[in-house]
C-alpha cells in the first residue's frame, strides 16, 4: 500500500516538475491563427512563420521576454484573449473602434486595407471615380468574404443588400471564386496578390475595386492586441515597434514576403 502511495507521489512530483515554469524569464503567450499565409502560417517544416510571427518574436525579444505561440481560429481569438488563454494577439488584426471597446492595441505594424477580386471577363464596374461603391451594380452578384472581419463590417455598412457568403479561410474563398460559386471576393490585397493572383494556374482574375481602407472600418492598420488595463505592457510594445520601424527591421520583415513595405509610414 505504502509503496503504491510512494510511487503515486513520485509520479505526481514528476508531473509537477514538468508543468512548472522552467525559465525565470517572463513568458508572453501570443495568440495567432497559424493559417494565414504569408502573415502567420506553418511552413513546410512545420515551423510557425510569416510577417506577424517575425514581428511578434522580435517585439517580445526586445521587451526582454520569452515568446510562446498559441494557435487559435480567427473567430475565437478575441474571446480567447479575454479569457486569458494568451496575452497578445499578433494575427494581422486591424485596430478598429469596435475592437477597441474590448481590447487595447499597440501602434500599427502593418497597413490594413481590402480590395475586391472578380473575373476579368465579367468586366465589373462596381465603384465610382471617388471610390464609393455603386450599390445597384452589386445586384445579383454574390460576394464572398472572411467571416467576422473588417471586410464583413464594411460590407454590412455600405452594401447591406448584397448576397454574402462568409468563409473561415481565404483559401476556401479563392476556391469558390474559381469554381464560380461566388462572383466577387473581398479580401486582403497583399495576401491575395501572393497566394492567389500570382499563383500558378490562376488566370482571368483581377482586382475590381480601389483600395478600401476607411479608418472607421479598417482602422489605422493592424496592431498587436492586448487586454485592457495593461498600460505598462502596451507602452513597452509601442516603444519596441517604433524602434523597429525606425531601425529598418519592419522593412526587412516586409521584404521577406513582399516586394514592397507593408507598414504605415507614420
Amino acid at each position, binding site marked *: 500500500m505504502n509503496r503504491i502511495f510512494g510511487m503515486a507521489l513520485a509520479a505526481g512530483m514528476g508531473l509537477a516538475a514538468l508543468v512548472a515554469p522552467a525559465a525565470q524569464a517572463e513568458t508572453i503567450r501570443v495568440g495567432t491563427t497559424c493559417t494565414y499565409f504569408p502573415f502567420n502560417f506553418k511552413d513546410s517544416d512545420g515551423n510557425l512563420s510569416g510577417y506577424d510571427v517575425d514581428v511578434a518574436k522580435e517585439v517580445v525579444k526586445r521587451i526582454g521576454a520569452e515568446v510562446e505561440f498559441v494557435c487559435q481560429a480567427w473567430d475565437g481569438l478575441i*474571446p480567447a484573449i*479575454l*479569457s486569458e488563454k494568451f496575452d497578445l494577439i499578433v494575427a494581422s488584426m486591424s485596430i478598429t473602434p469596435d475592437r477597441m471597446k474590448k481590447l487595447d492595441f499597440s501602434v500599427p505594424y502593418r497597413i490594413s486595407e481590402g480590395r475586391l477580386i472578380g473575373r476579368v471577363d465579367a468586366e465589373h464596374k462596381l465603384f465610382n471615380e471617388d471610390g464609393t461603391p455603386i450599390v445597384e451594380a452589386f445586384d445579383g452578384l454574390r460576394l464572398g468574404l472572411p467571416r467576422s472581419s473588417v471586410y464583413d463590417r464594411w460590407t454590412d455598412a455600405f452594401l447591406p443588400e448584397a448576397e454574402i457568403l462568409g468563409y473561415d479561410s481565404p483559401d476556401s474563398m479563392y476556391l469558390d471564386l474559381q469554381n*464560380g460559386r461566388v462572383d466577387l471576393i473581398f479580401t486582403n490585397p497583399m495576401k491575395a496578390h501572393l497566394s492567389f493572383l500570382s499563383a500558378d494556374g490562376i488566370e482571368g482574375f483581377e482586382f475590381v475595386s480601389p483600395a478600401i481602407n476607411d479608418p472607421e472600418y479598417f482602422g489605422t492598420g493592424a496592431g498587436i492586441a492586448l487586454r485592457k488595463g495593461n498600460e505598462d505592457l502596451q507602452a513597452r510594445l509601442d516603444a519596441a515597434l517604433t524602434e523597429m520601424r525606425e531601425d529598418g527591421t519592419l522593412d526587412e520583415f516586409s521584404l521577406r514576403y513582399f516586394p514592397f513595405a507593408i507598414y504605415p509610414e507614420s
Partner: protein
Amino acid sequence: MTFESSLILESLPRLMDGLWVTLRLFVLALTCGTVLAVGMVLLRISSRKYLSWPVMAYIYVFRGTPILVQLFVIYYGLPQLEFIRTGPLWPFFREPFFCAWFALTLNIGAYTTEIFRGGILGVNKGLLEASKALGMTYAQTFRKVTAPIAFKLCLPAYSNEMISVLKATALASTVTIFDVTGVARKIVAETFAPYEIFLSAAIIYLILAWIIQNGVRLLERRISRYAN
C-alpha cells in the same frame, strides 16, 4: 469576463433568421432522407446479393465517415471535377444550401435504413407465419403486418436520429450558410461575447429537441393505443 444577460435577448431576433434556415434544412433533409431510406431498406433486406450489397456499401461509407468530411467533399471536392462544374447539375451544387441538404439527406438515408431494417427484423416470426397460413402474399404481409409493426418498433431509434440530424444541421455553418450556428458565430464576432450568444443558440436547439421528443412521444402513444 462579465456575463451580460441582456445580450441574450438582443441576439434572439437575429438568431430567429437563422432558425428559419435551420428548420428548412432539417425538414427537407429529414423528409427526403426518410423517403430514401424506405427505398433502400427494401433493397437491403432482399436476399438477392446484387440488390443488398450496393446498399450495404452505401451505408458503410456514410456511417463510417464524419458528416463534416462528407459535406466538405460535396461542397469543395465535387466542383473540382470538370463535368460537375460544366454539367447540368452545377446550378444545384453551386448552392451551399443544396450541398448541405444533399450531405445530410444521404447521411440520414444511411442511418435510417439500418433503423428500419432493425424494426423489420424485430417483427415476430410467428405473425409472418400466420399471414402465410392465411394465404397472404409476401407484398401483402409486408404492407399490412410487417411495416406497421416495424414502424412502431423503430420509433424510439428514429427519434434519436431526428435529434442527431437537428444538431448536425449546425455543420452547414462551415460552408457559408447562416443557420442558427452561423448567425451565432457572426454575432459572437461582433460582440466578442461567446457565452451569451452560444447559450442563446443552445436554448433554441434545446427547444427544437424538446418539440421533436414530445412529438414522437405523442405519436408513439397514439399508435400503441391498442397494445396491452
